[in-house]
């Protein structure tokens, strides 16, 4: 086999594998990514029920209700809009009223989010960046109210 033929086979094989990979990547990027929204985005963008997404904001004070079988109901707020969230399971240790939270799940027809994942911050000095951005967007962010990643004082 000549050098040229060998090179052609190599290039052919590489292109083949790369195109398969590209096809896989593109198809999964269409189907399996999740968009992040603030509560106001959810209302303003008229997101249709059944869409998987992440919402972030603060747990609205006074909104946490616990039901049977580990059902937790709470509202996520960015100060402007509230979105009700239903979650069955154990919430993270730092899940508290007035604290930052990110919930991922499906939007229900009644406008609530049926969450299958609830993430809270993992350090009392830190707030998820998405939450900070969502609060900043709605104008409810005050510097120094909590320290985000990126402006923790040294």
């Amino acid at each position, binding site marked *: 086999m000549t050098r040229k033929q060998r090179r052609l086979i190599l290039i052919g094989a590489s292109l083949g594998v790369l195109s398969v990979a590209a096809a896989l990547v593109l198809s999964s990027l269409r189907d399996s*990514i999740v968009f992040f929204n603030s509560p106001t985005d959810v209302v303003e963008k008229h997101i249709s029920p059944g869409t998987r997404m992440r919402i972030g904001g603060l747990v609205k004070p006074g909104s946490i209700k616990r039901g049977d079988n580990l059902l937790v109901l709470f509202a996520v707020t960015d100060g402007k809009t509230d979105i009700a969230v239903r979650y069955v399971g154990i919430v993270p240790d730092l899940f508290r009223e007035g604290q930052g939270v990110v919930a991922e799940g499906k939007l229900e027809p009644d406008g609530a989010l049926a969450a299958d994942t609830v993430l809270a911050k993992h350090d009392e000095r830190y707030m998820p960046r998405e939450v900070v951005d969502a609060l900043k967007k709605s104008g409810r962010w005050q510097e120094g109210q909590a320290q985000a990643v990126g402006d923790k004082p040294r």
Partner: protein
Amino acid sequence: MTPEVGHYALVLALALGLIQSVAPIIGARDRDLALMRLASSTALMQFAFVALSFLALTICYVASDFSVATVFENSHSQMPLIYKITSVWGNHEGSMLLWVLILSLFGALVAAFGGNLPAVLKAHVLAVQSWIACAFYLFILLTSNPFARLPQAPFEGRDLNPILQDPGLAIHPPLLYLGYVGFSIAFSFAIAALIEGRIDAAWARWVRPWTLAAWVFLTLGVAMGSYWAYYTLGWGGFWFWDPVENASLMPWLAGTALLHSAVVMEKRNALKVWTILLAILTFSLSLVGTFLVRSGVLTSVHAFATDPTRGVFILLILVLFIGGGLALFAWRASTLKQGGLFAPISREGALVFNNLFLTTACLTVFVGTLYPLALEALTGEKISVGAPFFNLTFGPLFVALMFVVPFGPLLAWKRGDLLAVAQRLMAAFAIGIIAIAVAFAAQGQSILAPFGVGLALFVMLGALTDLVERTGLFRLPLSTVRRRTVGMPRSIWGTAIAHFGVAMSMLGIIWAATWGTERIAVVRPNEAVSLSGYELSFDGLVQRPGPNYNALVAKFTVRSGGVPIGVMEPSKRSFSTRSMTTNEAALMSRGLGQLYLSLGDSNNDGSIAIRLYYKPMVLLIWLGAVVMMLGGALSLSDRRLRVGAPKPAAKSALAPAE
């Protein structure tokens, strides 16, 4: 005084680094042996000064000197000694100091053990190594000085993030950095080869042990990180496809590819240009990993405090080294001579296949990790790319790769006989098929998991087949077998063992993810929950004070078939200094499986929410990584690599086959 000594030592290391960046290059140009040898002395001295600096910082932590800003931020006088020491690198500044400590250690090792390297190559390698070191010394000194003092020393520190108060912090970062930074040697060798415009099989012989050593550490580091996440996060998951995890997986994938392409280069003098490129890319991915974790573009436990100037500085380092490396490659790669020929069906062909799939798999991880960042920067849209993406892209590529693994070592160099190899693998293949059928019959839900189990068995038995074939077991008289077993190069053992380990990990991942069971419940004292034949009765809650926390411990008695087999005590630790709680899951190993119990909220009536998992075969995941590491270490101890006596580059046709 101590912090100033540390600070000054680091500045001296930088000064030495600057000399080492320039002098050996001039020496190599003028063939001035004295100037070239200077690099070895400066490399050793650099390490000594960085070690002194690191020691100084450690002393500050151990002595709880809160006048030092990082000690105040990350330590507490009541922390156990082990965490006082580990919190040295449990923050941004200190972890960067650990980074340069390991970087200078590798430089010193090349200086100390590179006695048989040609003087010019050694000079160039040490110079390039010093460029990297200088960039990071500057980064630390200008943006992240761990020795900065506070105007007034506070009485007490703000404590280390409780999540990091775990023995895992003592092991995971140093191992990971030994891996990450170890690839800098491969990078330096590649750049040196490009500068000299010549490269041969001997080059690969020098590079391979360093790459192998780095790979061994990185394998352990990644596995250790995964186990730490598993037992500390309370979700029972062992891999989250979190960008920070991906940052360590990408160099591992590229490094694994590099390991294999270096074999082709060493044995057959082929794939030279590709190996050089891969060496540059592997370290580039380590740098990208450092950037992702240290710049604050990601939010995670790993992103300690951040500051925009640091991100920009690391980005500059990134652009300089990756851009510079690739530009040099584009300019000089054509000067490297082409190597030996081989047919597509051959050991080389199989290793090319390995490289193709590993790098493509690495690319998909890269896309999945950086796409959300790029999209947010370009459109402001925020997305998250999670497990489904990686399962659909990385998964199929890895499956294809695993299928070919058993064939590679059995194929002959240059021109292999696929049919003959397939015949030898018949038994392994048949058992794999039977396993698929049995698993499917027993389970009957999905075909994917039984297929994965069959594939993993095929790879394991394929690795054993390779050993059986080489030693002649079952075929030749026992005395011959014994002689062959003893005489077989350790790298052959290493290959088979490492491949076996990969398959073990794969089997564990598939088994635990598919056939694991889970239960979330609220239990009252003296109530019991059962899962997969185990019955856990809740005996009650007790308070147990720790050195700097208060633990709420839940006691459970575990019974199997009515017989008590032990107690599990998951707990919640509340740390008052940071008003934070951590969740300590309780683990009980049953064979290779584990019972996993973690706590949720407790209620006033004494009941508590629990998460209980039974994860069969889960220990295989990490045992597999340990086996991989052992394979790598065995291969590293191979005489040919250890002696490293460079034979003159063999003419391709004469290169000895295994």
